[in-house]
């Protein structure tokens, strides 16, 4: 049933109130340490799939396991425990306004119980890796959208998660910076983290040469060429 899988979905279906079918019978297996690109047009269900993986949404039908833990009917503590192993980069970034870039990144570590000093050190390191060491003390709302996106990536990476879910993490970045971010995610994957990255950036996908899955109107197609 588990077999070293990070993600396993079986006949996964998500229908939103109003009848919109976001996912329709998805079967998916992602091995631990694997890097997977998730492609598809806007509205194809990429974000819904990532939200299901974070237990931010519940499936209408089907079953979903993360690291062997069945998410269907999981309790609050199990979900909390799962989320603590995940580094999420949301499409809408979800940074806390009024707080500095450093605070936003460190928050992801405070939640894990990392002591303040160490959290600050690791947050600075993560910001440096995304090229924002000189912006650490700036409030996020005063950063450009590309910089904000990198803060969100830094927050996910700083947690050294087992699973990274990245929803279009390079959408606002120039090609060079976008590749820098993908490289960081590839590094994380090389260290053992499982990465699922939703993107429209076909050039990046080609350059990275990793597994690709495509979502189309709620259906999944494996191994598509891009």
């Amino acid at each position: 049933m588990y077999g070293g899988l990070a993600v396993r979905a079986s006949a996964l279906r998500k229908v939103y109130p109003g009848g919109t079918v976001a996912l329709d019978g998805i079967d998916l297996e992602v091995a631990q340490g694997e890097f997977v690109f998730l492609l598809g047009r806007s509205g194809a269900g990429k974000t819904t799939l990532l939200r299901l993986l974070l237990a931010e949404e519940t499936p209408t039908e089907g079953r979903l396991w993360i690291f062997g833990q069945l998410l269907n009917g999981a309790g609050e503590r199990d979900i909390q425990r799962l989320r603590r192993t995940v580094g999420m980069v949301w499409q809408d970034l979800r940074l806390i306004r009024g707080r500095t870039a450093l605070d936003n990144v460190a928050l992801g570590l405070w939640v894990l119980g990392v002591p303040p000093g160490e959290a600050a050190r690791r947050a600075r390191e993560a910001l440096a890796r995304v090229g924002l060491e000189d912006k650490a003390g700036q409030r996020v709302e005063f950063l450009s959208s590309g910089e904000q996106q990198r803060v969100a990536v830094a927050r996910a990476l700083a947690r050294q998660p087992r699973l990274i879910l990245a929803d279009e993490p390079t959408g606002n970045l120039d090609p060079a910076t976008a590749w820098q971010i993908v490289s960081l995610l590839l590094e994380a994957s090389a260290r053992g983290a499982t990465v699922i990255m939703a993107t429209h950036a076909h050039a990046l996908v080609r350059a990275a040469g990793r597994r690709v899955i495509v979502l189309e109107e709620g259906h999944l197609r494996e191994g598509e060429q891009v």
Partner: protein
Amino acid sequence: MTYVLYALRECKWGLVRGARSYAVSVATTAAVLLAVGLLLLGNRSLEALIARVRDQAQITLYLKEGQDPAVIEAALRSLPGVTGVRLVTKEEALAQLRRDLGQDAFLLDALEGLNPLADSLEVAVVPERAPEVADAAASLAGVERVRDNRDLLARLVRVTRFARVGGAAFSTALLGTSLMAAANTARLTVYARRSEIEIRILLGAPGWFVKAPFLLEGVASGALAALLAGIGLAALYPVLQRYATAALPFVPVLAPAGVLPSIVGALLLAGTLSALAGGWVGATFRR
């Protein structure tokens, strides 16, 4: 320890960020607590008055003209509950009246040497036995009239009971208002910061990790409100003391050192707990 430091840090940040709404909440709670403090003060004064009247349980017997006080005194001393008997002769009573009248003592000159007062016996009794001693004394031969403080005590007890029940009800209502104010502030704060809360939850924060800063903010604002109410009470106390002494000279005025610390302590406790409860109610959100 990490979580505690985090909660304190977030609490500080939250108080600064929500300074305006917390200022309103602190002002409302402080006003409520000040009113509660004044009620407590009034209640304490009434209780002190009752205690004094009760402690001074004394019966005064006015004797008929020509009676031998020694006979009645001996009868009184044999009664259970009597702890002392003192004779006040009619001459002593007149001298006391003259002293009491002060500048108006000249009015007594109109008596032209006559003394209309009677010899009296002041009987000290154990408070609980006062009613039966008074009844027994009234039946003694040679006693013209008996005066005791039973009626006064009964009236005071009634007033105090009313004040206590009314004060408790009013205080409860006021504290309920304060709790609702704290809950509303917490709710508004939670609403204003709902996206942050959601982010923390999605990052895997434990429930209390998310909730603790709001509770601490509530406790801090409640304690501040109680402190302000305490300072207000301490500032008002001398003024009230002056007015009370002038308007109700028979009411014992309590020394500030004896009454204020406990009332301020009660306010601190009430303010903090109501804010904590309000914060708990307000910061209860779905995960």
